[in-house]
């Protein structure tokens, strides 16, 4: 089936008006992800099944994020960027990447920021809504990826259910100068392929997202991570990163860093 796309804002507005007040409830066979899920930190935990994990923090404080550039999952050019970011942070200059400067957070980077999320489930479309900057990700259900995915900030996500799990497969995530995978500004290329498995756990109190990342242009191996979110009773609040943000004007100072050239046509 051909995937239809409409402008994000128009689609979201029309969808919300068309639906009944509550979310379209999942039927008995579909797992229910309704509610508000709060990501308390940006830390990626080790993958549940073992194996290579995400770049880990080496700075003593979480609010000055410095990643381990020697992590073996990183190809040399990516390690150089993580090292450079860490040096900037240690010198007192926040690294210039998307989440600092209010650009979009795609997957899995969107989970590298504390935020809240809601999941709106309808049979053909699952919409992930994030408090931070009212970002949305669309997951087109039970269909394959397009033959030629045009790279974009959020990429193309398709999904299906496996018992109690929502499986989301994303490709076509454009590699922009400000793109980031994690809290440490780890970069990627447009070959990035991310699989997320969402599952409610701990008696309904937690939402666990098991993430698998492949990018033969940036990483030496497939690696995994676990992002956990807590059920929250706090409604979304308005969150506008660009407002009163002194860091929004900083630009990437990576001119001399070896970056993979991205192939997005725009």
């Amino acid at each position: 089936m051909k995937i239809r796309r409409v402008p994000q804002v128009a689609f979201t507005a029309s969808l919300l008006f068309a639906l009944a007040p509550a979310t379209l409830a999942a039927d008995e066979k579909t797992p229910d992800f309704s509610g508000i899920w709060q990501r308390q930190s940006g830390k990626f935990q080790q993958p549940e099944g073992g194996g290579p994990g995400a770049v880990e923090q080496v700075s003593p404080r979480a609010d000055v994020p410095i990643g381990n550039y020697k992590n073996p999952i990183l190809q040399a050019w990516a390690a150089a960027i993580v090292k450079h970011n860490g040096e900037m942070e240690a010198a007192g200059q926040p690294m210039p990447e998307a989440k600092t400067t209010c650009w979009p957070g795609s997957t899995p980077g969107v989970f590298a920021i504390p935020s809240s999320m809601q999941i709106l489930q309808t049979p053909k479309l699952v919409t992930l809504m994030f408090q931070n900057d009212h970002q949305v990700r669309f997951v087109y259900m039970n269909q394959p990826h397009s033959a030629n995915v045009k790279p974009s900030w959020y990429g193309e996500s398709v999904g299906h259910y496996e018992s109690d799990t929502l499986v989301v497969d994303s490709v076509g995530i454009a590699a922009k100068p400000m793109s980031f995978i994690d809290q440490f500004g780890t970069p990627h290329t447009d070959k990035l392929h991310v699989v997320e498995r969402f599952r409610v756990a701990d008696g309904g109190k937690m939402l666990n997202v098991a993430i698998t990342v492949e990018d033969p242009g940036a990483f030496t191996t497939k690696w995994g991570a676990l992002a956990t979110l807590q059920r929250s009773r706090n409604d979304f609040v308005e969150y506008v990163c660009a407002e009163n943000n002194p860091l929004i004007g900083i630009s990437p100072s990576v001119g001399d860093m070896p970056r993979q050239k991205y192939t997005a046509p725009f």
Partner: protein
Amino acid sequence: MKYATIGFLTFASLALGVPASAHHSYAMFDAEKTIDLSGTVKEVQWTNPHSWLEFMAAGKDGKVEEWSFEMGPVMGGPTGLNRQGFRVKNVQPGDKLVAKFHPLRNGRLGGELISLKFPDGSILGGREPIPRGEAPSTSAKPLE
């Protein structure tokens, strides 16, 4: 936030308690140094996630100038101001307070606000974030 007299890259950040990772780093603040500064509130900018306190205070030279303290997220999250007891009515222009903060590393007039002390000795802020696993507070009320 004021750029004019303070110049480019004047930040203040509020860590009411130690923040978990935020959407931007706090690297520009000197976490090893804590300063207490007496002054007068000029303005509170309640914007989420970057709220600011503009504060008139005398530095080492005795000259009263404007300091900018970043206060971080207004609402939501473990260190949101609302969860530390801040309400709009708590901090008003003209209030004489003592601001405790981590100063900017570049030496400019500003920092990361930790807490505010009132003339009666009461303190707003300065508490640790609510630990993971604890139930969140009831739905965030709108600022009064």
